[in-house]
Structure formats: C-alpha cells, structure tokens
C-alpha cells in the first residue's frame, strides 16, 4: 500500500481554495486582524489556534460572511467573496453553541438549508437520510434538539452544516462543550467524516491538543497576526518563535548567547561558571547573538550519575514531581536557580521510583533535541 503525501501547500502548481490578501479588520480602534495573508487548500483540515482574543474567531466569521474586512480581499475558489452575503456563500458553519433550531425536529434541522435552496422533495429526503447515516443519528430523526444528549446535538450540528455539501466547512470550537472522553472520540469521527466527504474544514480552537490531532496544518495566531503555519509535527518540533514553542505543549526555555562551533552547530553560553550547551540549528546565528534554546521536557533524560556521552548535561536538585500516571514530570532546580522540567515514563511502580524530592540528579539531552530561536 502506498500513501500519497497530502501536501498541496508545497506544490507551487496548486491553486489555494481560500486566499486572504492583506486582510485587516478593525473594530473601532481595536485591530482584530492585522494585515494577514494566508492560503488554505482544497481538502485541507486547517486549524486556527490561539488564545482568546487573538482574532481567530473574527477570521472565521469573515469567511462565513458575518464580518466584512476593513481592508483587503478574501478569495474563495478565485472569486472575491467580500461583497457576497452569508446566505449566498458556498460555505457553511458549525456554531460553538450548535445553534440547533429548538422548534424543529432533527430531521427538519438537517433539511433546513436544503429546503431554502429549493431542492426537490425526494432529493431532500435522500440527502437527509444520507447525513443521518453519516453521523449515526437515524434513530433520532423525529426528536427535538432538547430530547437528545450533548454529543448527539454536536453530530446534528455537523450533519446540518454538511447537508448542503459546502465547498468549505467552518467549525467554531466544535468540541468545546463535550467532556474529555467524548471529545477525543469525536475528534477521530470529525477526521473520518472530513476524509469521507472531501470537504475543506477550517476549525477554530484554543485547545492545542485538538488542533494537533485533527489538523493537516495548524496556524498559530496572536494579536491578529499569524505567527506560524505548519503541519502539527513541524509546529511542535521546529517552532519558529518562543511564542509558538511556549503555546504548543510544555517547553523549557533557556536564554543565552551563541558562538558558532561547527557547521550548523553552536555553543550556547547560558550562565556564568556553567559549561556552554551545544545545539544545532540550520538557521544562521552570529557570534554573541542573544538566543533562546527551547527543549521539550520529554527530550530531556534524567539520571543519577553523569551520563558519559551526552552533548549536554547539567546537575540539579529535584524540586517537585508531578505524577500523571503514565509519566512523571520532574521539576529540577539548577544551581543558577533555573527550573528545568524533564519527563520520564513510569516503567516501574511508583514505590520503586529512582528519584525523589531533594535528590541530586543529572539532566541530559542531545545537540538536536532543542531548537535555537532568535530573541
């Protein structure tokens, strides 16, 4: 079996489905979206990720037609959609509150959009049945929204927004109202449905785990700007800024100054009286440049004795241990006062744990474990 890599963003021949050209949106003096240019490709599952107030919802509402940009163009399949009202756009939206019509049955909710476009009755019946099957809601067709559970309501909202076969489906925090276990199941369902229908999905979320799980690409936003757009693994492994490194997952940031000591290799002076750290980077750094070294806790090994061949090793004292069941996070205080987090899998029972509070331990990591970021 061969799998074709889905990477239209790397193909210069590919035309984007959505193109934001220098879009700015102001509410009074507040700049919600700041001169933003992005491309979203067909069949993509594109996640807009950021803290609340970063402009991700405004961006989505501009795609749906509920907000118009103050400046710039939004192209959908080559057509400028800024002057097109929401009811004439080939996009549909799944709302955070689901916005199911409480006075209509599940069946009528799903049929609502189809009836508006004047589809013949037998076709409506077929399409609604198809949607009910897709979202496994056949049993509930006759019920009203208040007669079904939260997870089922979420699926109705999805079915209703997919019924018109939109070119683009917008999902505003679609899983926010579900409990954790249901949310994880639903994430895979969403991906499955996206694949089956071949629709382009744009999802807004503040939950980085959710974005990483479902998305083909993640756009990390802050203050109306896109900070980085990349596949989930690249966002995690090679963040382009301290902001992204810090926003996605757990990270240790060590400040220092660089000196080149080989091809793509730098030594990082980070504290007086401490041996410099070694880190590789394909971004150029000049000698004496201030930098941040970002290292994920799971890439740091913890041991009682100094490891022989580690590129980087520092000694410290265990300050705190967060026990998470499968793994433990050790907070280790270095002599300089810096606290470094290191993660280790709990392969042994907790009573046989090798290190405990106040123990002196060694932390080590390879030259490629961390990412060097310019300040």
């Amino acid at each position, binding site marked *: 079996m061969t799998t074709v890599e889905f990477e239209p963003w790397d193909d210069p021949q590919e035309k984007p489905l959505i193109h934001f050209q220098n879009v700015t949106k102001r509410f009074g003096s507040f700049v919600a979206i700041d001169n933003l240019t992005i491309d979203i490709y067909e069949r993509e599952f594109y996640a807009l990720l950021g803290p609340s107030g970063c402009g991700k919802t405004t961006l989505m509402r501009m795609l*749906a*037609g*509920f907000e118009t940009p103050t400046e710039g163009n939004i192209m959908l399949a080559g057509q400028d959609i800024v002057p097109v*009202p*929401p*009811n004439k756009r080939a*996009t*549909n*939206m799944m*709302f*955070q*509150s689901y*916005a199911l*019509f*409480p*006075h209509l049955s599940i069946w009528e909710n799903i049929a*609502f*959009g189809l009836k*508006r*476009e004047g589809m013949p009755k037998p076709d409506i019946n077929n399409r609604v049945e198809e949607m009910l099957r897709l979202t496994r809601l056949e049993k509930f067709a006759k*019920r*009203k929204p*208040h*007669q*079904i*559970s939260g997870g*089922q309501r979420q699926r109705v909202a999805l079915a*209703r*927004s997919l019924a*018109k076969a939109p070119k683009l489906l917008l999902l505003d925090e679609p899983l926010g109202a579900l409990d954790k276990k249901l949310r994880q199941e639903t994430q895979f369902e969403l991906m499955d449905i996206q694949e089956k229908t071949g629709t382009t999905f744009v999802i807004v979320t503040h939950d980085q785990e959710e974005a990483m799980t479902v998305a083909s690409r993640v756009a990390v936003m802050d203050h109306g700007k896109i900070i980085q757009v990349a596949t989930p693994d690249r966002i995690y492994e090679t963040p382009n800024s301290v902001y992204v490194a810090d926003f996605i997952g757990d990270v240790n940031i060590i400040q220092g100054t660089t000196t080149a000591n080989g091809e793509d290799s730098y030594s990082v002076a980070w504290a007086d009286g401490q041996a410099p750290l070694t880190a590789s980077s394909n971004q150029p750094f000049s000698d004496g440049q201030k930098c941040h070294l970002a290292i994920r806790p799971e890439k740091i090994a913890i041991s009682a004795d100094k490891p022989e061949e580690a590129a980087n090793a520092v000694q410290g004292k265990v300050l705190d241990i967060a026990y998470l069941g499968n793994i433990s996070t050790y907070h280790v205080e270095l002599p300089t006062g810096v606290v470094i987090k290191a993660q280790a899998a709990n392969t042994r029972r907790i009573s046989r744990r090798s290190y405990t509070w106040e123990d002196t331990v060694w932390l080590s990591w390879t030259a490629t474990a961390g990412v060097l970021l310019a300040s």
Partner: protein
Amino acid sequence: MNRTSWFNVVSLTLGFAFLYIPMIILIIFSFNESKLVTVWAGFSTKWYGELMQNEAFLNAAWVTIKVAVFSSTIATVLGTMAAYVMVRGGRFRGRTLFSGMIYAPLVMPEVITGLSLLLLFIGIGLDRGVLTIVLAHSTFSMCYVSVVVSSRLVTFDRSLEEAALDLGCSAPQAFRLVTLPIIAPAVISGWLLAFTLSLDDLVIASFTTGPSATTLPIKIFSAVRLGVSPEINALSTIMIAIVTIGVITTSLISKHKMVRQKREEQEAVRN
C-alpha cells in the same frame, strides 16, 4: 424549621383578605334576590337573566372585545418590530433616546396620554369612535408588548439567526422561520397583556371615545354613578370568571409544557 408560625399564618390571611374580600362580596351579591345591593334577600340568578336582556350592556361588551382584539393585534405587531430593532439594530445614532422614548408611555399618567390623543384626533379631524379608541389603545399597549418581547430577545441566542442566514435564509426568512417561532410565547403573552389592558382601560377610552362607541368600563362607570345595580355585580362576576379561567388555563398549560420538557431532557441524558 416551623413553617406555620403564627406570623406566617396572620400575614397570609391578611394579605389574601385584603386582595379578595371585595371581590367575594361582589360575587355573593350578584346572586342576591333583592334589588338593594347591601341587603341579602335570598339566592337568585335573575340578575344574570336581566343582564342578557340589556342591549346597552351587550353592545358595550361587543365594542370592548372588538377594540381589544384590534388594538392588541396592532400593538403586538408594532411592539415586536420596535423590540427587534432596539435589541438587534446595533448601535445607531439616538438609540438610547429611542429606547427611552418607547418606555416613557409606561410611566406617563393615563390622563396625559388620553388628553394628548384627544387633542391629536381633534386636530386632524378624525371622528371619535371605535377607530380612535383602537388607535389610542394600540399606542399605549405597544410599549408593554415591546418590553415583554425585548426581554425575550435579549436572551435569544444570536447564533440561531446567523445559522439560518448561513443555511441560505434571507434576513426576513430568518425572522419568519427561526426567530418568530422561538419568541412566539413572548409575543403571545405580549398580545394577552395588551388585550387585558385594553379590556379594562377607562381613562384613555373616555378621552378618545365618541357617542357611537361605549366600551364596557365606560358603561359600568356611568351606570354606577346612577347607583350600583345587581346587574353590574352579575356582569363583573362574569368578567372575573372569564379572567380566572384564562389565567388558570394558561398557567396549567405552561406548567405542563415545562414538566414535559424537563422529563424529556432527563431521558435524553440517560439514553
């Protein structure tokens, strides 16, 4: 905790006595044999019979119902539109002024409302009659409708309308197919409120009425000035009965609905 303390019992008794003794006396005396209102002379329903023969009262009742139906319908349409614009219109110039002006008639003394309407009708040369009362009642009761409807609209989830637009509705379609059915209970209670306000209004109706149109409150008021007759007691008892039945029915219906909805929601969680 002692819930039936003497204080609770006394305040409850006093409160109910204060509210209902006058009405109970009125109802009892409507079944009085004697023509004298204050002397009990045995049980009889003859005043109800006589009331049914009294053309003037029946005419007045008919006029009152006509006025109430038309004015409350007009008030509901106008009041709902006003509420919608005030809640949904966003921030336009003079919005605060407008919303203040909508609610001003609520606190305006009825005498002033009545007088100003009278001057207006005279000014534009409109003959006073059923039409002028309908207009006057629509004017003052639309504020009440607007208050009831806008309090519902404030809690209305805006994304429901956006969902309707998103699924292909034009704005008027979204209002008709989504907003209106959902706020219907508030619109209906606004209509009922306007209806009852119109039914018992005396002051504004007296200002704006003409010789051709006498509403029931005006008729009763002028009849009482010539002396209270048992017929009026009978008429009032009928009105009390109608209102009581209406109130009990609506509260039973809404309670039944609420109980059913709660039960269905619990079932949905279990399944």
